[in-house]
């Protein structure tokens, strides 16, 4: 744990130095620093010191020019921009170069080869378009030696249909997405692994059963799932009733800003409890008090998820996520704090529409 903390502090120092150095930093943070009456490069030495920054506002990520987030040290490199939100209004954007590849290669190391065989082909049954997830899953598959098959899925349209109360159209769209998936699965591509969301997994399994087959019979052995809230009950239901033995399901928690938080293996013995750990030191998760974002709650207590991203491509200190959960103790595999029971932040949940994806 001490070693992990030391690595985190070292990462903080390196990243702050990079982003606030006029030779390497990005316009946004260099300009930001001119408005501070202190110098981040000389005053930030540890993760705790990041509290000196004011809370990161997600509004800063909306709109252009998106190059204001490009560190000078990376000028000339091919750039991606990934979006989050955007059902209405301007989406939040994050520039990326290699981060998504690095994050998913790290995640790849956590996947058991028995269920996610090297060289196996994948199906990406999740959101397409300007999302990091689409390319990241494809890279994960390629990194493991496979080819990734994809479907079209526009989550913004899904959320609009829900908000408009167009439930029949929503059902048709979901059926359209599942139809694409089953067509690929039945087309002889030898697909063994997939990414999907909890709701789409449910729909896929149901439709396959309606056709007299199953996820397992379709050849799938490993499922990496995420995108929306995962509960222990859902996981149990999926393992016991949708998948059965022989199909491995790994829940994840991630977004465009953070990358991917992995879960400890989920087992019946542990009540299907899902505990996520951030890919530290490239990102860190804290569970903080609802009324004081700088106070980490005690282990087992509930709080809001606060995310810090610490890569040379992106520096986001203390971003308050739209989720809450319970603070969890470090474990052997991940010797830093985790978070369990992640669910939409109660004060925002009433205003949030969660789509099928």
């Amino acid at each position: 744990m001490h070693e992990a903390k030391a690595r985190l502090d070292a990462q903080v120092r390196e990243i702050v130095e990079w982003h606030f150095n006029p030779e390497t930093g990005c316009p946004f943070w260099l300009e930001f620093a001119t408005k501070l009456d202190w110098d981040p490069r000389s005053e930030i030495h540890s993760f705790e010191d990041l509290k000196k920054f004011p809370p990161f506002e997600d509004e800063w990520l909306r709109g252009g020019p998106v190059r204001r987030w490009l560190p000078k040290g990376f000028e000339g490199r091919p750039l991606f921009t990934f979006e989050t939100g955007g059902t209405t209004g301007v989406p939040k954007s994050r520039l990326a170069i290699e981060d998504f590849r690095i994050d998913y290669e790290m995640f790849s190391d956590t996947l058991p080869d028995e269920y996610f065989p090297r060289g196996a082909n994948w199906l990406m049954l999740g959101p397409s378009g300007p999302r990091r997830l689409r390319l990241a899953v494809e890279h994960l598959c390629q990194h493991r030696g496979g080819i990734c098959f994809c479907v079209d899925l526009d989550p913004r349209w899904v959320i609009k249909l829900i908000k408009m109360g167009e439930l029949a159209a929503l059902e048709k769209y979901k059926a359209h997405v599942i139809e694409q998936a089953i067509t690929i699965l039945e087309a002889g591509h030898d697909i063994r692994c997939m990414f999907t969301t909890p709701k789409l997994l449910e729909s896929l399994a149901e439709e396959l059963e309606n056709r007299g087959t199953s996820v397992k019979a379709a050849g799938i052995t490993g499922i990496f799932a995420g995108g929306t809230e995962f509960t222990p009950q859902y996981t149990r239901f999926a393992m016991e009733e949708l998948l059965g033995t022989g199909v491995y399901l790994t829940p994840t928690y991630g977004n465009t800003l953070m990358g991917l938080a992995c879960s400890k293996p989920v087992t019946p013995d542990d009540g299907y409890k899902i505990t996520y750990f951030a890919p530290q030191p490239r990102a860190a998760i804290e569970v903080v008090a609802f009324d004081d974002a700088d106070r980490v709650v005690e282990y087992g207590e509930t709080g809001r998820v606060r995310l810090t991203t610490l890569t040379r491509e992106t520096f986001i200190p203390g971003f308050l996520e739209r989720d809450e959960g319970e603070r969890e103790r470090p474990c052997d595999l991940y010797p830093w704090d985790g978070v369990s029971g992640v669910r939409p932040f109660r004060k925002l949940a009433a205003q949030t529409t969660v789509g099928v994806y």
Partner: protein
Amino acid sequence: MAILNIPILRWGQPYTSLDTEDVVHFVTGETLARVSQANTGLLGRDMRLSERARQVLTEIPISELIATMKKAGDLYLNATLSMGDGAQTPDDFARQQSASTGLPEHMCKANMSKNHFVLSNMDKILDALTRGLDLNILTRGYGIESRGVMVSYQAQSPVLGLVLPSNSPGVHTLWLPVIPMQVGLLLKPGPQEPWTPYRMTAAFTQAGVPKEAIAIYPGYGEMGAEVVRRSNRTMIFGGLPTVERYRGDPRVQVHGPGFSKIMLGDDVVDDWEKYIDIMVDSVFLNSGRGCINCSGVWASRHTREIAQALAERMGPVEPKPPEDPEAKLAAFTVPGAARAIWNSIESGLGEAGVEHVTGKFGSRLVEKQRCGYLRPVVIHCDSPDKTLSNTEFMFPFVSVVRCTQNEMIRRIGPTLVASAITNDEQFQRQLMDATHIDRLNLGPVPTIQLDWLQPHEGNIVEFLFRPRAFQSRLEKVAV
């Protein structure tokens, strides 16, 4: 008392979820039950067995199911029945239902009697709702009715989905005729009222209804929508947004606010004092919670005096503990609900021409540690244009509205129960023709008076069975 653990019932099979919600006593905060919460996928998978629910019921003659209902009614009213991992006496039931819904215990017991009455008179009720149909025709799907004509009735769904409310135990009478019509039940209880669905199911199965015919899926908000999505026929209870969401969907029967009213014709309004008892009963009984409770008294004159008289009768009423046999008011057990309603009323009171007549009887909002009460509110509106002139809240609230008789029918808006006190035949004719009035009472009939032999907000037989043309020349057809 030990906490009851109440499982999901998957066509009779108990299933304990990893997600649970506590049902707590609104006065003491004591946890009464821990109810398993279903994820929507469970329902999706189990719907594959919905056909079986009807199949096992059609194997039992309707006449036998009707007798079973009578037995079940007696068990429900008098027996100690299983409830989750424990047992429940009738007194426990009333206490627990009161403790989580806020309804006084004696009102819970009165609702038990209503349910018992319906179960005990199922033969008469089905005879009335089917207009004397030979009930075997519902089983067989066709047959010759008493006037010698071939008729056919086709079940539109093997099960009826029900998305039930938390706060109005009186509504359960509506789904009791479903099982004897050989249609299964798919119940989603209200979060604070798991008691009736589970107790009724225990009574039904003990009386002989196959357990495969009934499923219960407690759940969070999305479960209600999932029931509607999955079942070809659903009865759902909710507020105006729910009504709007499912309006025009033939698969869904929505029960929302009633906006029930008493209308006084110009020919009788000068004798308004004769009808004050009816008005008070209509507004006040059952703590004003039902959609059939009156929320508006409309007349062309004397409205201020009427409001004053109603206020004198109801204004002094104060909350009493739920076990007090004299308790007349139900508590709002959802935190903040009573205050939110009062704030909404208060914002309308500032409008010119709106007068709060019960104000002089003290504060209406009474907040306790874990609940809130609203004492009866009488408002006077000098025209139907006022925001509060056509509003409904789940406590004894009534707007007395001044409106000419000529305008009255047009201005009342959708009205579940209209009790029109008038001998004016032309006015009566207009009332008969008004399609936005559902249940019409002509004469001094309280809005809350029910006739169990008449349909409520749509005939459930017509909702579940479609009459259709049917001809047969087969020498032998399925029996």
